[in-house]
C-alpha cells in the first residue's frame, strides 16, 4: 500500500517478471538473439530516472532478494501478477517461465499471482498442459505472446482456428483474464506486428473473457483505442506507458494518458510496472503525484484521486478477485465513461 497526503492506494502491479537472461541460459546458436533481446530491454530501462538504472550483468539475472525489496519493501506493491514469457528458442530454460515464477509465488502466496500461457501451435498437448497448469497454479489469467517462435513458425494470431479451443478451455477452467502482448515485436517480417484486429474479433466472440492489451498496442495506440472503445471487455495494460514515457517524455506521457482516459476510461486502465525493466517505486509515486502539466490539456478527462486508485489497483483487483482493504476502497459509484465515438473518419472505413 502507498500512502500520500492522507490517501491510501492499494497497488496491484499487473505486469511483473522474474527472468533469467544470463549467458548460461542462452541457446547455442541463438546467442545473438538472446543477447539482443535482453539488451533491448535494458535500453528501455534507460528511459527511467538515472538512479534506477542497473548494470547489464544484474539486469540479465537478478536475485529473489532484489525482487522482494524492489517490489514489496520499497516499491509499494501489495500484489503483483507474473506474466511469463517463454522464448525457449533463445533461452534454454525459458526466459521467464511459469515454473521460474512459481518458485517465488509459492513463497508469497498472498502477494504474487501467477499467470499461465498457451500457444495454439502446441495443439492437444498444449490444451492438456493448460489444464495441468490451471490446476497447479490456480490460474485466473494467461499471457499470450503471439510473436513467439515455434518450430519454424514465427508467430500466430488470436483469430487462428487453432486458437479457438484454447479460449473455450479458458472459459471452462475459469481463466477469465487474457493478457495479450501488443507492443514492440519483430515478426512477421512483412506486416505491421502491432495489429490489434485479432483482439477485436475474439473480444466480440468471447464476451465472458477480459482482454488486457499489454503496452496498449504501443506504438499503435490509436488502433488500440479505436478498438477498445467498441469492446467493453478490452482493457489497457499500462506497462511501458508509465515506465517508458513518464520520466523520459513527460509531455507525451500527458497526452497519451489524456487520450487513454478519454477513449478507454479510468475503469479499464491497469497499472503495470514491468519489473525488472523498471522498478515500481518511482512509477507508483510518480503516478500519484502526476497531473496534466498545464491547461493546454484541459480537453482531456480529469485525473482524480479516484482515477489513481482505480488504475493503481482497484480495477485489476476486480478482474482477479483480490480483496482490497477497506481503507483503500472507493465508495461505490459509476465510473467516468469513456468515449464511444466512431473512428471511421480517420480509419476511412466509412
Amino acid at each position: 500500500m502507498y500512502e500520500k497526503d492522507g490517501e491510501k492506494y492499494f497497488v496491484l502491479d499487473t505486469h511483473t517478471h522474474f527472468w533469467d537472461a544470463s549467458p548460461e541460459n542462452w541457446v547455442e546458436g541463438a546467442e545473438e538473439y538472446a543477447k539482443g533481446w535482453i539488451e533491448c530491454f535494458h535500453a528501455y530501462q534507460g528511459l527511467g530516472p538515472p538512479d534506477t538504472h542497473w548494470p547489464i550483468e544484474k539486469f540479465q539475472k537478478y536475485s529473489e532478494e532484489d525482487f522482494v525489496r524492489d517490489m514489496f519493501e520499497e516499491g509499494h506493491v501489495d500484489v503483483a501478477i507474473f506474466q511469463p514469457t517463454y522464448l525457449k528458442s533463445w533461452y534454454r530454460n525459458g526466459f521467464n517461465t511459469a515454473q521460474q515464477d512459481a518458485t517465488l509465488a509459492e513463497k508469497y502466496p498472498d502477494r504474487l499471482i501467477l499467470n499461465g500461457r498457451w500457444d495454439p501451435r502446441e495443439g492437444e498437448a498444449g490444451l492438456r498442459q493448460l489444464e495441468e497448469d490451471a490446476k497447479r497454479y490456480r490460474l485466473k489469467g494467461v499471457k499470450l505472446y503471439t510473436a513467439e517462435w515455434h518450430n519454424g513458425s514465427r508467430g500466430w494470431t488470436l483469430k487462428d482456428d487453432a486458437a479457438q479451443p484454447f479460449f473455450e478451455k479458458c472459459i471452462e477452467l475459469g481463466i477469465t483474464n487474457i493478457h495479450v502482448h501488443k507492443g514492440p515485436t519483430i515478426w512477421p517480417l512483412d506486416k505491421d506486428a502491432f495489429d490489434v484486429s485479432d483482439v477485436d474479433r475474439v473480444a466480440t466472440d468471447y464476451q465472458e473473457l477480459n482482454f488486457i492489451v499489454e503496452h496498449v498496442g504501443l506504438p499503435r495506440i490509436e488502433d488500440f483505442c479505436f478498438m477498445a472503445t467498441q469492446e467493453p471487455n478490452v482493457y489497457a495494460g499500462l506497462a511501458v506507458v508509465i515506465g517508458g514515457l513518464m520520466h523520459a517524455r513527460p509531455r507525451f506521457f500527458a497526452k497519451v494518458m489524456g487520450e487513454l482516459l478519454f477513449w478507454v476510461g479510468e475503469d479499464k486502465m491497469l497499472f503495470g510496472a514491468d519489473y525488472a525493466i523498471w522498478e515500481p517505486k518511482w512509477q507508483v509515486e510518480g503516478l500519484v503525484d502526476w497531473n496534466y502539466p498545464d491547461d493546454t490539456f484541459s480537453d482531456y478527462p480529469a485525473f482524480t484521486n479516484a482515477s489513481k486508485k482505480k488504475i493503481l489497483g482497484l480495477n485489476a483487483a476486480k478482474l482477479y478477485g483480490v480483496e482490497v482493504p477497506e481503507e483503500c476502497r472507493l465508495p461505490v459509484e459509476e465510473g467516468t465513461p469513456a468515449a464511444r465515438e466512431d473512428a471511421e473518419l480517420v480509419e476511412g472505413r466509412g
Partner: protein
Amino acid sequence: MTDRADVLGALGTVYDPELDEPITSLRFVTSCDVSAAGDVDVRLRLPTPQCAPNFAYLMAADARDAVLRLPEVGTVTVVLEDHYTGDEINAAVGRGGTFADAFPGETDGELDALRELFRRKALVARQSRLCERLLAGGATVGDVAARRVADLPDNPDARRCIELRAHLDIRSDEDAPAFVLPGGEPIAASDLRQWLRTASLVRTSLEANGGICRSLLRVRYGITDPEEVAA
C-alpha cells in the same frame, strides 16, 4: 561532382515510414562520406538492435535510391549497423534487391501496403497539426473546411502533406480541398471536430512513438537530446 552536402540533402528526403520524419533529423545517419572519385558510403543506425526489419529495410533501401538519384555519383554503399538482421538487409540493399530477397521465404510480398498504411496515418497526423493551429488562431470549423491547398501555409507540415498526397494519389492542385480523409474526400465542416478528435490521437501516437525512439537512440549511443520536439 556530388559532395557530402548533396548526399546529406538526399538523405534528408528519406523518411522513417513509421514516424514520418527524415532519417537525418532522427539522427539515424551515423556517417556519410564521399571519396574523391565520388563514391558514397553511408552508415545508418536505429534506436534498438531489434527495430522492425521491415521499416529498417525500407529506410536503407530508400537511402540508397535517394543517393543514386544524385547526378555524378559513383558507387553507393549503404550499411545498416548494429541490427540483428543487418547482414541480410545490407546484402539485399547492396545488390539493389527487394525485401523478399533479403528474407527469402519469410515474407508474402513487398512492403507497399505497409508503407501506404503509414503514409495515410502520417497525412492524418500532419493535417491535425495544421488544423489545430488554424482553429487556435481563431478560424471556425467552416473556415477550415473551406480551405484550399493554395491557402495552406508554407511550412514543413503543409509541404509534407502535399508530398504524402502525391504518394497516395490524392489530388493536391491549388484548388483541391486542404483537408481530406484518407480516401481523398474533403472533410465536411460538420465532421471536422470529430475528425480532429480522432486525428489528434493518431498524431499523439506517432509523436509518442517518435519520442520513445529518440530516447532509446540517446540511451544506446550516448548522444544528447536537447528537448522534446513536439506535443
